């Protein structure tokens, strides 16, 4: 079988993702230095919010989505050994790229400094929202392409779903569960607002946005978890501790990742306490699959040590291949994700949330999750994917080992400082933390520490872009049979593989969690506010 077409898709998507990562990271550095009092680089407020919008949109949405699409095509085609529909695949890629270019052009033109959450009634140019709409359309066609191929495979083989494919499908299901929320917001409210100045109800729009915004984080995270399940046993020459528990974890993500968005609205007036409380508890449930993932992976690591005759209780930790860049990157991702998860439980707590809402604690939190657990995993996985998909050898092998270590050190410093500053009330999304001299001196000290971490982090990013860019362009040719990365399994399907059952259950839970808040919002009567420029 020939995968030329699929591999070309993956190559374009991944190169596009790397380019976006480089641009977005640059904005991250500028922002960080601007927020640091007395640093030599200071953006003006409108430059700052342009930068912050670009950083958020390009990294949180574009970098992740494009890398994930490239990865998904690679996994599905090789693990299931099937081809995808050529026209759908190309159409989805063209639409997605056109959408991103439109939105990015709107941001860079300076007319759309609305951040990646684009809360109305702040109004961006119509190009911004139209670009997003086209991007979402592109991703829907992409998801359809994958599902059509999967259904064909399933009919032909009737076997159990292999684990990486299971992860990819879960990712796409969550994307399809989530995106209707933002699509409704953009098409019903925001495009009319930007074209015809139609007033928008902010509470309604925010609820649709966060209906999308939370499951979005699982859309990022699940491919990373899939890569963990994929690489850890291969790097340690063993099998996963259990094949079943990972599937249970994926299913729990399908069930509980969406009906929790209101945990971003705990301090929004207009949503009753009991609905906030319900979604707080539902958020706790969605930590269960993360716990299960941690268990399976750690148990796999220990198992491989015992299989090699290891006896000591904690000796397996020392024996792990810490000099392997892929292993080290994944291990650091898991460690920082653990802290991200603990912090997440605090964010999701009905009462504690008030202490951290909109402070730099939150910024510290999601730089552990999306900017490390996800981004660092994607980075180190690229050291395998570049040979496998591009057939190019990595040029600077030593740099691949240095890079995840630097990211880990930089992020630990940056994120710890931002977490602590958040507890002292330092707000996020502000270009200047001095507040006319009222700011406590601890804010300034912590901002300076964060800047040191952020610079280290950024250097690691530069090394990554440099190394993977030169390798893709100039690396020695390697003939690698990527299919050999995957093993052929031929097990009988079980109830865990009946994905449609779980999707139906998920829809029921989503309806139960959201019908009452929406009833409350609509029965009170809306209070739309007229749009204003940023």
């Amino acid at each position, binding site marked *: 079988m020939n995968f030329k077409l699929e591999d070309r898709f993956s190559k374009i998507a991944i190169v596009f993702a790397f380019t976006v990562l480089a641009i977005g990271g640059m904005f991250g550095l500028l922002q960080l230095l601007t927020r640091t009092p007395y640093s030599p680089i200071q953006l003006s*407020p*409108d430059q700052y919010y342009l930068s912050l919008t670009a950083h958020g949109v390009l990294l949180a949405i574009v970098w992740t989505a494009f890398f994930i699409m490239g990865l998904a095509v690679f996994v599905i085609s090789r693990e299931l050994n099937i081809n995808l529909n050529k026209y759908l695949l190309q159409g989805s890629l063209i639409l997605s790229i056109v959408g991103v270019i439109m939105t990015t052009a709107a941001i860079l033109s300076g007319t759309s400094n609305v951040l990646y959450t684009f809360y109305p009634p702040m109004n961006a140019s119509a190009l911004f929202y139209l670009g997003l709409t086209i991007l979402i359309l592109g991703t829907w066609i992409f998801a359809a392409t994958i599902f059509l191929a999967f259904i064909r495979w399933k009919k032909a083989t009737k076997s159990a779903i292999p684990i990486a494919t299971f992860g990819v499908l879960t990712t796409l299901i969550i994307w399809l569960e989530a995106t209707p929320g933002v699509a409704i917001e953009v098409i019903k409210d925001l495009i009319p607002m930007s074209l015809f100045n139609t007033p928008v109800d902010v509470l309604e729009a925010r609820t649709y946005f966060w209906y999308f915004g939370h499951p979005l984080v699982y859309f990022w995270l699940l491919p990373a978890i899939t890569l963990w399940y994929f690489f850890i046993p291969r790097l340690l020459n063993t099998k996963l501790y259990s094949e*079943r528990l990972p599937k249970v974890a994926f299913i729990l993500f399908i069930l509980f990742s969406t009906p929790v968005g209101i945990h971003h609205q705990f301090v929004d007036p*207009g949503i009753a306490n009991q609905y906030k409380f319900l979604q707080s508890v539902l958020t706790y449930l969605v930590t269960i699959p993360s716990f299960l993932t941690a268990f399976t992976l750690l148990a796999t690591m220990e198992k491989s040590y015992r299989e090699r005759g290891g006896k000591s209780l904690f000796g397996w930790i020392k024996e792990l291949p810490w000099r392997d860049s892929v292993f080290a990157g994944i291990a650091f991702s898991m460690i920082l994700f653990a802290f991200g998860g603990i912090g997440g439980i605090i964010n999701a707590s*009905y*009462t504690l949330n008030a202490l951290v809402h909109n402070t730099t604690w939150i910024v510290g939190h999601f730089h552990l999750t999306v900017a490390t657990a996800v981004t660092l995993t994607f980075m180190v996985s690229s050291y395998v994917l570049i040979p496998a998909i591009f057939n190019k050898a990595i040029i600077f092998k030593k740099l691949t080992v240095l890079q995840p270590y630097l990211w880990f050190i930089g992020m630990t410093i940056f994120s710890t400082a931002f977490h602590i500053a958040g507890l002292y009330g330092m707000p996020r999304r502000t270009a200047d933390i001095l507040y006319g001299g009222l700011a406590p001196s601890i804010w300034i000290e912590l901002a300076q520490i964060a800047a040191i971490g952020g610079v280290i982090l950024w250097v690691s990013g530069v090394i990554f872009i440099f190394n993977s860019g030169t390798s893709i362009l100039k690396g020695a040719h390697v003939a690698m049979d990527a299919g050999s990365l995957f093993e052929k399994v031929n097990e009988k399907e079980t109830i865990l593989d009946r994905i449609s059952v779980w999707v139906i259950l998920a829809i029921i839970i989503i309806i139960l969690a959201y019908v009452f808040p929406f009833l409350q919002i609509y029965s009170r009567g809306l209070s739309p*506010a007229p749009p204003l420029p940023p």
Partner: protein
Amino acid sequence: MTDKFEISFIAVVIAILSFFVYALLQGTTIGYQPPSACSVYPAVNTFKSGVVEIQPGVYEVRIVAARYYFDPSTIILKNPKKVIFEILSKDVLHGFEIVGTNVNVMVLPYYQATFTWDVPSELKGNFMIICNEYCGNGHPNMYAELIIER
């Protein structure tokens, strides 16, 4: 799932989460409640700001949030026990955070937020009030001051 380690791990996870939910329930009974009450307020220009002591130690504080100021910009409270805040945004989304306390609420345009703050009895001095949601270029200049005298 017959593996005994898996089973016991799941049991531990469920125990931890049950404890957390129990703690949440406890938390809801000791005073703090998220600021959830609101009323639609489309006639934003009729809203009057100001501070009134309605009973000894009980204040009603009505605040306008707008680009890029809070009105009143200095709030002085003498021996406050309870403060009932009523806040309205006249333009875009803002935040209202009193730094160093658990007062943190989104201020939605055309919605009036109403919530009560039980002021800890030891709290006194000057506190920063900041807008903690991006509201435009002047967002970093949107702050006010709360002074508690005892």
